[in-house]
């Protein structure tokens, strides 16, 4: 499904972008240039060719790893993506890590405790779903960067430049983005744990004297995690949209901010390259989820 998906998505991007009123030549030259100047630039950029030709030549290069170059900066698209990918991946992986650890921890805790802890989990889920990440990010900047100077307000430090600085630059954006993931994962973990804890094999494990620790972690959590993994995949895909916003709030030079710029500038090669890149990331996430699912669930493995 992966290859046709990439094919369809990139073709769709070309069609969509070609529908736009005005093209990159007009964006570059503004509205005051002469018609001759437009025509010359269009020829240079290859914009006068029919769309399918443009797409075909793009595709021919793309399969060889050449995604063309930005109309505005002339930077090769693959290079631009390569520079910015670590930022977005840091954000994505950091957020997923925090969401999974805290979400599962909280979900298990509230499933075991019930009562007040259960209500707290429900309330947390509601709050996590309701607070928009870009706004939480802005509030975090006010509190932890403006009032308390604990973390930098904006910007990104490469891990190769300074691991500590990298970590500090990620804390606030990861915190803002994690809220949703924690809420979704905690809710699913709690529900899955409650279902599994009520199952016959847990009752039998208890009846035959297994320790609570083995029952909760080896048996209940292992089986509940099959359902949690699905939600983690959904959260990860949803986070790609979140990173676009977070990169904007925290001025992180990632793929999302590149996307917003390229989109508003009609920079077709960059947009198309980014769409392909995002789709590859999603496909990778889905693949990882499927692998985790296979690993966790022997009943599926054998079919």
């Amino acid at each position, binding site marked *: 499904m992966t290859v046709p998906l990439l094919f369809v998505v990139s073709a769709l991007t070309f069609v969509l972008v070609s529908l736009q009123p005005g093209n990159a030549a007009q964006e570059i030259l503004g509205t005051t240039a002469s018609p001759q100047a437009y025509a010359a630039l269009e020829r240079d950029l290859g914009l006068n060719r029919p769309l399918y030709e443009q797409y075909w030549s793009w595709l021919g290069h793309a399969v060889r790893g050449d995604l063309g170059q930005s109309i505005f900066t002339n930077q090769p698209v693959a290079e631009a993506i390569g520079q910015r990918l670590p930022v977005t991946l840091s954000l994505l992986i950091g957020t997923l890590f925090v969401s999974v650890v805290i979400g599962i921890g909280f979900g298990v805790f509230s499933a075991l405790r019930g009562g007040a802890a259960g209500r707290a989990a429900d309330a947390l889920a509601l709050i996590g779903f309701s*607070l928009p990440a870009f706004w939480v990010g802005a509030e975090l900047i006010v509190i932890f960067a403006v009032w308390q100077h604990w973390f930098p307000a904006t910007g990104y430090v490469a891990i190769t430049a300074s691991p500590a600085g990298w970590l500090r630059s990620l804390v606030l954006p990861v915190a803002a983005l994690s809220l949703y993931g924690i809420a979704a994962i905690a809710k699913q973990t709690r529900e899955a744990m409650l279902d599994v804890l009520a199952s*016959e094999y847990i009752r039998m494990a208890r009846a035959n004297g297994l320790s609570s620790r083995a029952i909760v972690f080896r048996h209940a959590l292992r089986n509940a995690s099959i359902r949690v993994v699905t939600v983690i995949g959904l959260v990860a895909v949803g986070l790609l949209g979140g990173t676009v916003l977070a990169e904007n709030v925290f001025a992180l030079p990632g793929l999302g901010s590149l*996307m917003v710029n390229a989109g508003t500038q009609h920079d077709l090669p960059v947009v198309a390259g980014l769409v392909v890149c995002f789709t590859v990331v999603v496909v990778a996430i889905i693949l990882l989820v499927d692998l985790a699912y296979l690993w966790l669930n022997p009943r599926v493995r054998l079919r």
Partner: protein
Amino acid sequence: MTAVAPVAAPATASSSGNPHFLRRLLRRPIAVACCAYLVLLIGVAVVAPIAMPSVSTQDAGNLFAANQLPSWSHLLGTDTLGRDVLSRLLVGDRVTLIGVAEALVVVLVLGVPFGLLAGYVGGWTDRVVIWLADLTYSLPAVVIIIVVLSVFPSSMLAAMITLGVLAAPDIMRVVRSATLPIREELYVKAAEASGLSRAYILTRHILPRIAGVVIVQASLLAAVALGVQSGLAFLNLLVAAPAPSWGGMVAEGTTVLLLHPWLIIPPGVAIAVTMLALSLLGDSVRDAAVESWSAPAGAKRTAAKRAPATLAPASTKTDIPNDPRLLSVQHLSVSFPGQDGYLRVVDDVTFTVAAGEIVGIVGESGCGKSVTTAAIIGLLPGKGRIDDGSIWFGGSDIARASEADLRNVRGRRIAFVSQEPTAGLDPSYRVGAQIEEAVRQLQHLSRPAARARTLELLRDMHFADPAAVAQRYPHELSGGMAQRVAIARALAGEPELLIADEPTTALDVTVQAEILDLIRELQLTRQMAVLIVTHDWGVVADLCDRVVVMYAGQVVEQADVQPIFDAPLHPYTEALLASNPHFAPEAITLPTIPGTVPPPGSWPAGCRFSARCRYAVTACAERAVAIEAPNQAHETRCIRYAELVKQ
């Protein structure tokens, strides 16, 4: 398991679209508050831009009054350009709600009909819907919307339609799964048979039933749409300045975070409260709908809890036994929460099991057999509790034992085997690993020693190739194999007593005999006592030394096996024996016991069997019948047992 929810009312298939549902929803204060808030928002969206026409074109207000905190003249302060924050917030409400409505309309128009069709018609429609749903999961929605917005700059309509199209397969899938079971229901089949058109059946019969599901999904999707709308507005991709939108106001605020941090609070709170209202409304609708689909399910989800505090410290009825019995259950009473308080399910049950003895508990379903055994190991399902009585085991009363003390009994001294062997094993681990885990925990063996012991246990279960069986997962075993594995695990701690709750009920007849032979053999070789719950007299005859007959939560007769078969002293035992295929003469219609066991809560005051008893006289129903012991070790709860013997 007959113990679960003894009073669970049949799920009433009432429609979620009926007036009761709405009334139930309106009885929830949270739902009412959410609806009121949303109606208010819609009102503001209609009125505010009309009442304050200049706000959406106002580039700047009073620049001398810029960046003010809330005051009486500006209730929410002013922004960097001196404009009143409150009026911008109110006017910006409209564009926010329009965006949500656009996405919602697209989602519903695409999602509901196709979901209905997929669920109702099935076939290739169904496959296409599932495929589309899978496909949209692999699309990064926000990224695609940004591409669309680069083509249609600042077109909220284009953005929200795209969101709707991307979200529609999700609701298609939900509607489809809600429709599938309804399609199979009788009244739909009847409507089809009477020649009503598909369109009529879909709109008049099925749509009202799935309305609850659709409302839940719609409110959750509205929350998502609001998040996306405000996020895109925040990126300045949707609404051209100076027109206000909530997301745009947050964006304006972030440019002056250092100077005026207050500015982002009003629009942020407005977004958050609206999303909260939508999510809460969805939750309330779901809860109200669930309530109408099933009776309040008691405490299905709360972990089993013993309530030692509610148990009298040592009731006067309890005699401390000084006999050599291994297990002595004395006056045990158990109840479960019902609709109106706790309901007695097991009532004053007394019996004993000696070391090395095999005792059977027989009776029809719903007589309290399984609950009694669950109470012994302290694992009553749900919120079941021991009201009274004691369970003496090895010199201590385990009815009053703490969870920690019970853990030292379970597995190590009393082991348990259930009637669902496959469901009783963890599906995620190989069975060898599960036995090994029990061996290691219960016997504190090293890993290699535990592995050897596991194979030994499996060999004792007559597996020809224990190593191969150990490598299998529970779902790769037949029922009989799984039961033998379950017994192997139960024996890991060398227990003195094995409780087997209908161990052969789910198995084929030939396999049943194997398991029974195995249990007898293990009992002989290990000198282990066995308490076996069954409703099969063949099992009793084959295996048991003594038998306890239970009816409607009580012991009605108990004795050694031979006297019971030769001369039962209770009409219920007699009737059960007569209705048993093992002992009925051939070519005769098998007699059945008329009527059913009275459920807990409706037990008669007198003899509980009297309504179904062919020997019943008026005196039987008058008052509770006590246990009597006419012979040595033969007890009965019947006032007419003497006459029964003569007949």
